[in-house]
């Protein structure tokens, strides 16, 4: 147990970071029935903005800048690449999402010259070390799950109690009738992308505290894992995405702790296949009827 503790701590932390990304997948899927393939790249861009901005700006400027710019990026992507296709077949939307993903990676390549950008100034305090029950770890390991749960609670409050949140849930079931209530579909969809990207940016800030550099493909793996988490939890469901993410983060790290590091990624994708075969709606998924 003492031997596994660091892995469990890491697992909880990774789980929190996956959760912050997977909420973006689940929210967008919930409202547009679209798997936003560009979401992992948005996460990566947040990391790049952090690297560049923290090189010249103090953290109390650069962190808010990362959050705002990433949220704006999410907004712009939807307006430019998805909104014009709203009445097109769903497949066009998917292809557009894949296009956006590559576009962002290429722009990032252009910007970085293809070189991984070192995180020379990690965020202070969270990157400091602490000792938990004899295991030494970065403070971010403890901060991540707490911050994640706090943000999830805020998000649940937002979707249950606020006007726009109720509008969002209504639109996720029936655009036309939501419109009849006076819900402005465009605002609700934009809001969804802004929230999802904002959370991914928070995840990115936490994630890159533990990584030496940001590469243009840095979003791919965490993005994929978070997507699996969303499917595992039942895509469309916020609690599902969070539970899925923590389970995947923990399982991966425990597998590593048991000495099977090579298989930890394979485990995640095997899980995806099993879930799709056995229970396609995931842990908390709603009826399968309106999923596909």
């Amino acid at each position, binding site marked *: 147990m003492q031997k596994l503790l660091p892995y469990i701590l890491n697992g909880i932390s990774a789980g929190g970071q996956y959760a912050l990304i997977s909420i973006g997948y689940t929210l967008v899927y919930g409202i547009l029935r679209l798997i936003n393939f560009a979401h992992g790249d948005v996460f990566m861009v947040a990391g790049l903005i952090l690297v560049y901005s923290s090189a010249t700006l103090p953290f109390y400027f650069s962190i808010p800048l990362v959050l705002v710019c990433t949220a704006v990026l999410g907004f712009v992507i939807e307006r430019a690449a998805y909104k014009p296709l709203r009445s097109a077949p769903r497949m066009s939307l998917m292809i557009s999402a894949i296009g956006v993903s590559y576009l962002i990676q290429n722009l990032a390549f252009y910007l970085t010259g293809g070189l991984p950008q070192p995180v020379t100034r990690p965020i202070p305090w969270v990157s400091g070390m602490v000792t938990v029950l004899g295991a030494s770890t970065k403070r971010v390991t403890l901060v991540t799950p707490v911050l994640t749960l706090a943000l999830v609670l805020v998000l649940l409050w937002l979707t249950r109690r606020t006007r726009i949140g109720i509008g969002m849930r209504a639109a996720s079931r029936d655009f036309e009738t939501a419109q009849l*209530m006076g819900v402005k579909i465009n605002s609700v969809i934009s809001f969804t992308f802004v929230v999802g990207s904002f959370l991914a940016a928070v995840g990115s800030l936490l994630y890159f505290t533990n990584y030496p550099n940001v590469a243009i493909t840095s979003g791919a793996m965490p993005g994929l894992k978070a997507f699996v988490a969303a499917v595992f939890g039942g895509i469309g469901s916020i609690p599902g995405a969070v539970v899925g993410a923590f389970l995947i983060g923990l399982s991966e790290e425990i597998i590593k702790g048991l000495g099977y590091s090579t298989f930890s990624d394979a485990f995640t994708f095997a899980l995806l296949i099993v879930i799709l075969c056995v229970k396609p709606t995931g842990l908390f998924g709603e009826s399968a009827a309106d999923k596909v």
Partner: protein
Amino acid sequence: MSMEDILQIRDLYVSYGGIEAVKGISLHVERGKIVTLIGSNGAGKSTTLKTVAGLVRPKSGQILFEGEDLVGRSTDQIVARGVTLVPEGRRVFPNLTVKENLRIGAYLRKDDYSRDLAWVYELFPRLKEREWQPAGTLSGGEQQMLAVGRALMAKPKLVMMDEPSLGLAPLIVKGIFSIIREINRQGITVLLIEQNANMALKTADWAYVMQTGSLILEGTGQELADDETVKSAYLGVKK
């Protein structure tokens, strides 16, 4: 065409791709009245209401609400002006509770809507009892009550209802119609689509008959109920 018309539709044409669903209809709804639009399947009744609500763009024509043309306005702007539609097939939000469904009916309102909520609960005590239940778990009749209640939460001047009696047991249908009269007594104008022509004509002050995209008859509810064509085609009375 008196000044008392809350709604005037003038020469409205609507088509879906190549299919002409509404072929130049003109009708008017007097303020404070119940007006019904009857007609068989595919006549273009729902299309007409959806066009008024801004969900469908007409090819040409005017839709004057209190003298202002609604054509080209977005649905939320139309709702804000006091026009709501109870859609065909109820369309309550199954994932929202009864109370949330009612709350979203008041989506655009900035004022306090608690009095209207109390009124809706008074009209439909069943909804009050099931306030916290997801709307998807309600019976068909209860869902229809919720759909009507939800539309009232916007504090509309004109409520359009698309076949509120569809698929409901006769007793529930009676209940729905008495609610329609009650809503109307509170000063709300009602434009009602029905296949249940019998009940609709009894309830309405004025009625139109629609057939394959055109209006073929109009008159008071009583006049149309006595009309031979209407009797045979819509009331199921043999000649």
